[in-house]
């Protein structure tokens, strides 16, 4: 026997464990190599296919959310409506005040039409001068 054969024979019993070590390293190699490889066209197509459906589902969900937002009553008017009883009196007072001011102005305009505080229009005055 050669020294090589003697040395190797000495450790033959460890071979199953060395096989396990080798397999483990190769499995790791396979795991790390797989993600590095570029995807095949078929894989890319299927990914985009899956992405398309994901996009459609997401868009639909957002559309529903937007529609719900539009249909919901505005919370601020709801709060204003709650103290409507308080503002009715104010509104009545405002209407009365407006009406009073309107009458006042109407009264003034009728008085102006009937009174002589304001000078007569020139069209009405000039004929008198020519006549004199």
């Amino acid at each position, binding site marked *: 026997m050669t020294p090589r054969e003697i*040395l190797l024979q000495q450790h033959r019993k460890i071979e199953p464990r060395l096989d396990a070590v080798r397999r483990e390293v190769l499995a790791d190699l396979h795991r790390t190599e797989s993600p590095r490889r570029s995807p095949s066209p078929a894989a890319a197509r299927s990914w985009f296919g899956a992405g398309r459906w994901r996009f459609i589902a997401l868009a639909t969900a957002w559309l529903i959310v937007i529609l719900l937002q539009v249909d919901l009553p505005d919370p601020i008017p709801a709060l204003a409506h709650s103290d409507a009883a308080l503002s009715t009196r104010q509104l009545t007072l405002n209407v009365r005040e407006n009406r009073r001011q309107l009458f006042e102005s109407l009264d003034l305009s009728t008085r102006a039409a009937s009174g002589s505080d304001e000078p007569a229009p020139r069209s009405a005055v000039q004929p008198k001068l020519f006549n004199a």
Partner: protein
Amino acid sequence: MLAVADIEQLPVAEARAGDSQAWDALFRRYQLPLYTYIYEWVRDEQTALDLVQEVFIRAVRHLGTLREDAKFGSWLFGIAHQQAAQYWRKRQRHLVALDEVEGEVPDGPEEPGEWLLRQEDNTRFLQALERLPILQRSVLVLHFMEELSLEEIAGITGVGIGTVKSRLFYARQALRRLLEEDKS
């Protein structure tokens, strides 16, 4: 001298391209020699297995640094030597210069069949080998295991060719003496 690996067709180029079957073939070829070499340093089964695994991982990561595919075997043993020697140094703390007797050593090929041993001499051979200092033993194991050239062993162990030659000479001499002593 032809190294064992030189007469084999090793799928190094395929491994370089990421072929896991090629890696499987390469690891299968070297797993036991690597383990045997590392075991000579660490003398513990589990540690040797862990270091073999580390060698495999490093080989996968750093194959790009290997310039010549034909040198794959010695490159792999180089990684194994680094790992084993590093572990050994951490454990030993003191590196004893046991065989650093640099000097002229006689040149000459080995006698054919000088190391051919009978089955019943196996244990005696292994016991004698174990008694050699680690620096001599590691060089001798590399020489026996893969029939590597002096240059290749120098590359693996990171020392000069003269040192390798010296270690190999004294290791052979010591081993021969030990075997003779045991016989008588």
